[in-house]
Structure formats: structure tokens, C-alpha cells
């Protein structure tokens, strides 16, 4: 409605202006009167806004400047120009609003992963309620085509789910009873019954929306520069305009007064910095939005900006470059049976949250009997010391054996070439070792290559594994530098050391899966947490969260960052360039008010349209 009235006003003014120009009455009263009639439909609103804002103490706003410019034009007798400038200013404003609306809609669409309802089973009934009314532990039913509203575990049904809204991955994933599902994914084929494990506020979808929406409150350097610039730009242009109107005519002894006033009025038309103030944040938001569609959540414009300056990428090995799933490859007992060795090791390691423990338990296949375990002591970087069946069991690496003076190791470094050996000793006697191996992720090698192609100077891998294992993996993946046999606490020190080798102004990125990583994630210029929303501490500490577990997304994120910055720079240079040129031309008398209107609203519209390109990362990111 509002827009329709604006269009009506503009059309009316335009028609009256046309009539006035064609008719061109010579009468000294009739002439201003008809132009005034043409001016009022478009101008009255602006004049009123300006008057009200002055009463509120707001002087240098767009309305006021346009009012002064057009009234000034009237006073020096440039009637057609005065009307035309106002008409085109309003047309431009209309375009600008349209472009802003459209951008806001695209952003809203991007955020359209919020589920509207949940079908919850209560008693024999299935009720449709708002997702935030569902309690943890309740069962929800999701039909094909519906969005899964809350995080949970499938208790019944098989289906394919589309996770593309969260991860950017277009191949549907299969889920069945016992599997975990995240909110925001779309159920494609079968009916699923899901036991809710997280409330709506803690569910993935709410957390993603929260992250992306809050990302705007952390502003980039470019945005801060523009805000500061805008604060000085308008007063500076207005002051210049005043000087322009007053000084040259005084110097020239009062001649060509009208001419200089006209030039000053053109200045006023160009004095709003709106093009920049809108398009720069819009570019960053587009970049962040586009990245989130690829499953890359960036927590602030400042981080998106910083990513482009990445020089060193440091990876945690396990869970980041490798699958983090260790499988028992070989059991080599010494004096005991294979089954005994595995059983002892599985019990000793059962309280550890290290992935090795999980793989031992998996290979053991039976339940762990906690009553057989006495005390357990974790020795970081070495292994565990535990009491099992009354015996003191040591399970860990060669360093652990050496530390406790256990001799008789049958395997040493050769085994560790491919995987990790868990040596086991009972009451100081060596019982053999279990070899466990972890595979690099499918895209790990491509990820390193993509980073090199994107101009990253150095890739570094950190691992707690033996140096031979580390070196072998690094070699396979093409990583420049590797630090092995690290304790969790060493990681921060290594990163500090790497900071020293960094060029000034460039950035160091650390990527980890979030287990034991929080301090390093926080210390790095940009911390990237891999593998979705697993660890709360990691998400808190990380600046970028990658929803999938693909390390190749790091290079994608850097590319999106570079592209966004390019668009932002284009806009800054284009807007300032056009404004600067038109200001110069106006000062020297070559630019008319028409050029001024173009430099104001025309530039805004073009810059906004350019910024919207930042949003489109879907196809581009794969073929950068």
C-alpha cells in the first residue's frame, strides 16, 4: 500500500513536470506555481520529515539535505531541475527499498530452516504443537516431506534424509532405528519416530540460527571503517558546499552567485553515504549466509574478513584430517592369549574418552564389567594405569612402558609406522601389543592441495601420535610440517611458536575437532571446529564451525572470504570513486544535479545489487 502511494505521488509529479516543461509558461507567477505543484506530491513528505528531524535535533540527515538542495534550486530559479531531482531521488529511493527488501527476503529464506511445528505422541494421540513445547524424552513423529523439528534418536522407522540445509551436502543420508538425527534436516521417504534428546533452544537448528544472526554483531574492519567514514563524510561535504557557495562569489566580487550556489546544491545531493553504509554489511552478511548454506558457520563478519588473510593452517590430526575412528588391526600377545590381551586392554582403557578406548571396546564386543576395575589413572600422552582383576595394568604407548621400566617389547617403531600400538603390561610384565590404525579422511589430501592452491604458505599437523606415524600421515597428505608426540597442553605452545614465523598482518588458522582443543581454538587468529555441533566448549571457543567433517571446507571458507572481500572492495571503490568524480565535476561546474542524483541513489542500488552476489556461493564454490 505504502509503496503504491509513493508510485502514485511520483507519477503525479512526473506528469505535472512534463506539462510544465511542454507548456513552459512565461508568467513570473504562473511558472513557479506550476513547478511548485509538481514538486509538492514528491517533496512535501521529505520536507516534513526534515522539519520533524530538526525538531528532534537531527540536522544532517538525507531528508534535510535534499530539502535544502531542492529549495535552493527553486530560489535560484532552476525550477525544472528542482522538481526533477526530487522525482528521481524518490524513484531511486523506491529502487533502493526494493533492493533492500529483496536482500532481506533472501536472508530470511536462508534462515528458513526453522521448523514450524512438531507432531508429538502423547498417550494414544499425536498432537501438532510448537517445537518449543516438546519435552526431552518425548516421542515425535516425522512424516515424509516434513522437517525434523528437534534433535533426537530414531526409535522406529527407516528413511532417507536431506541434510543439505545444514551441511550443503546434496546426497541424502540414510537413517534407521538407533541413529541420531539433527533438527533442520528434511525427512524424504519413510515415517520416523524420534525420541527427543534436546530441547528446542539447544537443538541444532536453533543454535545455527543463533550463530548466524549474532554474527552480524561482530563487525569487520571494513564495516567499522565505513561507519567512521560516514560520520565525517556528510559534514565534510556539507561544509565544502557552504564554502563553495560563499567564497568564490566573494572573491569574484559578487558575480555568478547563482552558478556557485547551484554547484553547492549538487554537493548536498551527493552528501549521503548510504550506498556504502548498506552495501558493505550486506556483502558480509551475504558471504556469511552463503557459507552457512555450505555447512560453514562463521561467527562474525570480522572472522570472514580475516579468513582471506590466512597464511598458516594448523590441523589437529585425529578427527580432523583422519576419521578419528580407530580399528584394531592386529593383536600380538606375549605369554597370554589374544582374547586375554584384548580383554585386559579394553577394561584398562574403558574409562578413557580417547578414541583408542572406543575401538578396543568395539573389538572386545562384550560388555565391560566395571566391578573388575579398581582405580584408574590417566597419564596424558602416555596411556593409562589401572587396576583390573587385582593386577596393575599399564596400557599405552612405548613411552609408558619405558616410564615404568617394563621391558620385553616385541614390537617397536616398525608397528607404529602404520597406526598406533597399545602396549599392555600386567604387574610389570609385558603382555604384548594391539595395533590400532586410523585412516585419513577421503578428502584430506584434496583439502591440503586446495589450501595450497588458495595461496596458503604453510600447513602444519599436530598429533599426540608417535613421530613416525605423524610423519607417515603428513607425507601421504602433503603437509609441510608435523609436530608429534604432543601432550594436549603442548598444542598452545606450538601455536605460539608458529605465530613467530607468521608475516605481519597475515593470519593463523587452527582446525580441530574440539576434543581438548578449546584453548588452542581460542588462541589462534581463527579457530575452526570441525564435525558439526558436537562439543559445546569447541563451539564456544571456535570462530568458525564446520558442520560436516570434511577438512576441504576450510579451503572453501577461505575462498568465500576472498570473494566476499573482493565484492566489498569493489563497492567501496565504486561508490567512493563515483561520488568523488561527481563532486569534482560539480565543483568545477561540469556536473548537473542529475549526476548528483545518480551518484547518490543510483550508486546505492548498483552497490546493493553487487553485494547480493556474495550470497550466491552454491555453484561458484565448487568451481572457483
Amino acid at each position, binding site marked *: 500500500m505504502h509503496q503504491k502511494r509513493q508510485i502514485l505521488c511520483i507519477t503525479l509529479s512526473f506528469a505535472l513536470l512534463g506539462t510544465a516543461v511542454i507548456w513552459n509558461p512565461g508568467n513570473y507567477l504562473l511558472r513557479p506555481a506550476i513547478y511548485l505543484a509538481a514538486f509538492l506530491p514528491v517533496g512535501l513528505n521529505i520536507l516534513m520529515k526534515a522539519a520533524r528531524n530538526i525538531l*528532534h535535533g537531527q540536522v544532517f540527515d538525507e531528508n534535510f539535505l535534499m530539502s535544502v538542495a531542492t529549495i535552493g534550486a527553486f530560489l535560484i530559479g532552476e525550477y525544472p531541475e528542482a522538481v526533477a531531482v526530487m522525482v528521481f531521488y524518490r524513484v531511486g529511493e523506491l529502487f533502493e527499498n526494493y533492493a*533492500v527488501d529483496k536482500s532481506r527476503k533472501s536472508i530470511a529464506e536462508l534462515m528458513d530452516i526453522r521448523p514450524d511445528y512438531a507432531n508429538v505422541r502423547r498417550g494414544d494421540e499425536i498432537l501438532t504443537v510448537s517445537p518449543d513445547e516438546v519435552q526431552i524424552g518425548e516421542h515425535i513423529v516425522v512424516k515424509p516431506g516434513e522437517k525434523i523439528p528437534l534433535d533426537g534418536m530414531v526409535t522406529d522407522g527407516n528413511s532417507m534424509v536431506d541434510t543439505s540445509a545444514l551441511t550443503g551436502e546434496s546426497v541424502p543420508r540414510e537413517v534407521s532405528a538407533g541413529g541420531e538425527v539433527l533438527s533442520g534436516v528434511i525427512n524424504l521417504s519413510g515415517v520416523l519416530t524420534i525420541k527427543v534428546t534436546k530441547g528446542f533452544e539447544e537443538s541444532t537448528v536453533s543454535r545455527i540460527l543463533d550463530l548466524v544472526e549474532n554474527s552480524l554483531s561482530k563487525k569487520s574492519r571494513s564495516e567499522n571503517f565505513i561507519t567512521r567514514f560516514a560520520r565525517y563524510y556528510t559534514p565534510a561535504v556539507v561544509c565544502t558546499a557552504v564554502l563553495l557557495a560563499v567564497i568564490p562569489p566573494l572573491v569574484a566580487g559578487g558575480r555568478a552567485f547563482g552558478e556557485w550556489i547551484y554547484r553547492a546544491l549538487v554537493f548536498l545531493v551527493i552528501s549521503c553515504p548510504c550506498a556504502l553504509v548498506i552495501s558493505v554489511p550486506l556483502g558480509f552478511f551475504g558471504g556469511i549466509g552463503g557459507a552457512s548454506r555450505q555447512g560453514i558457520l562463521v561467527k562474525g563478519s570480522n572472522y570472514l574478513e580475516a579468513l582471506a588473510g590466512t597464511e598458516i593452517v594448523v590441523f589437529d590430526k585425529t578427527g580432523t584430517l583422519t576419521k578419528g575412528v580407530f580399528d584394531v588391526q592386529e593383536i600380538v600377545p606375549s605369554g597370554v592369549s589374544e582374547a586375554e590381551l584384548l580383554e585386559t586392554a579394553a577394561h584398562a582403557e574403558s574409562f578413557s574418552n580417547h578414541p583408542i578406548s572406543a575401538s578396543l571396546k568395539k573389538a572386545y564386543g562384550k560388555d565391560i564389567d566395571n566391578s573388575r576395575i579398581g582405580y584408574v589413572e590417566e597419564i596424558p600422552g602416555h596411556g593409562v594405569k589401572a587396576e583390573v582383576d587385582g593386577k596393575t595394568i599399564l596400557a599405552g604407548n612405548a613411552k609408558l612402558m619405558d616410564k615404568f621400566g617394563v621391558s620385553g617389547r616385541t614390537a617397536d617403531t616398525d608397528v607404529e609406522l602404520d597406526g598406533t600400538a597399545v602396549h599392555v603390561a600386567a604387574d610389570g610384565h609385558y603382555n604384548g601389543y594391539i595395533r590400532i590404525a586410523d585412516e585419513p579422511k577421503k578428502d584430506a589430501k584434496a583439502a591440503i592441495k586446495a589450501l595450497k592452491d588458495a595461496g596458503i604458505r604453510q600447513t602444519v599437523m599436530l598429533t599426540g601420535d608417535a613421530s613416525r606415524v605423524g610423519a607417515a600421515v603428513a607425507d601421504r597428505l602433503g603437509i609441510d610440517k608435523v609436530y608429534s608426540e604432543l601432550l594436549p597442553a603442548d598444542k598452545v605452545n606450538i601455536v605460539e611458536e608458529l605465530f613467530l614465523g607468521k608475516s605481519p598482518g597475515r593470519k593463523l588458522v587452527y582446525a580441530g575437532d574440539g576434543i581438548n582443543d578449546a584453548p588452542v581454538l581460542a588462541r589462534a587468529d581463527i579457530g575452526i571446529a570441525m564435525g558439526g555441533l558436537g562439543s559445546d566448549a569447541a563451539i564456544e571457543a571456535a570462530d568458525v564451525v564446520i558442520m560436516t567433517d570434511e577438512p576441504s571446507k576450510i579451503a572453501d571458507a577461505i575462498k568465500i572470504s576472498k570473494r566476499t572481500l573482493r565484492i566489498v572492495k569493489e563497492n567501496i571503490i565504486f561508490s567512493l570513486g563515483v561520488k568523488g568524480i561527481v563532486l569534482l565535476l560539480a565543483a568545477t561546474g561540469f556536473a548537473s544535479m542529475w549526476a548528483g542524483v545518480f551518484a547518490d541513489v543510483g550508486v546505492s542500488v548498483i552497490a546493493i545489487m553487487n553485494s547480493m552476489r556474495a550470497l550466491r556461493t552454491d555453484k561458484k564454490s565448487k568451481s572457483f
Partner: protein
Amino acid sequence: MKKTFVLEGLGCANCAAKMETAIKKLDGVRHASVSFLTTKLVIEADDDKMDRIVEASRAIVRKIEPYCVMK
């Protein structure tokens, strides 16, 4: 404490920037940001001063853009 408001009718990007600058200067505000795109105002401030800050922000918003309502 952190509070988020929607600025209905926020029509001018430069005004959004002015509001942000003005709200940031209020006593007790740790961080404030106005996003012209999502039309959201986020204020992070000391708990005991929050109510007063919200009132002051309302006045600032009204002063800079009379049609704009803070919700």
C-alpha cells in the same frame, strides 16, 4: 546480560549506524550493534543498568527515526 530487539520500520542504513553509535555511548553498555539487514538491535549491558539503558535506547531510536519502533 544480552537483549535483542527488532526495530520495526528501520528504513535508513545511515540511521542504523547512528543509533548504534549513540547506544554504545550509554553508560553501562558493554556492546551494542544495530543490523540494518536483519533489523535487529543487540544490547549487552550490566544487569542492574539494563532497564534504564533500554529506555534510553528507545528514546534514541525514536529521535533518529520517528517511524521506527523498538520491540
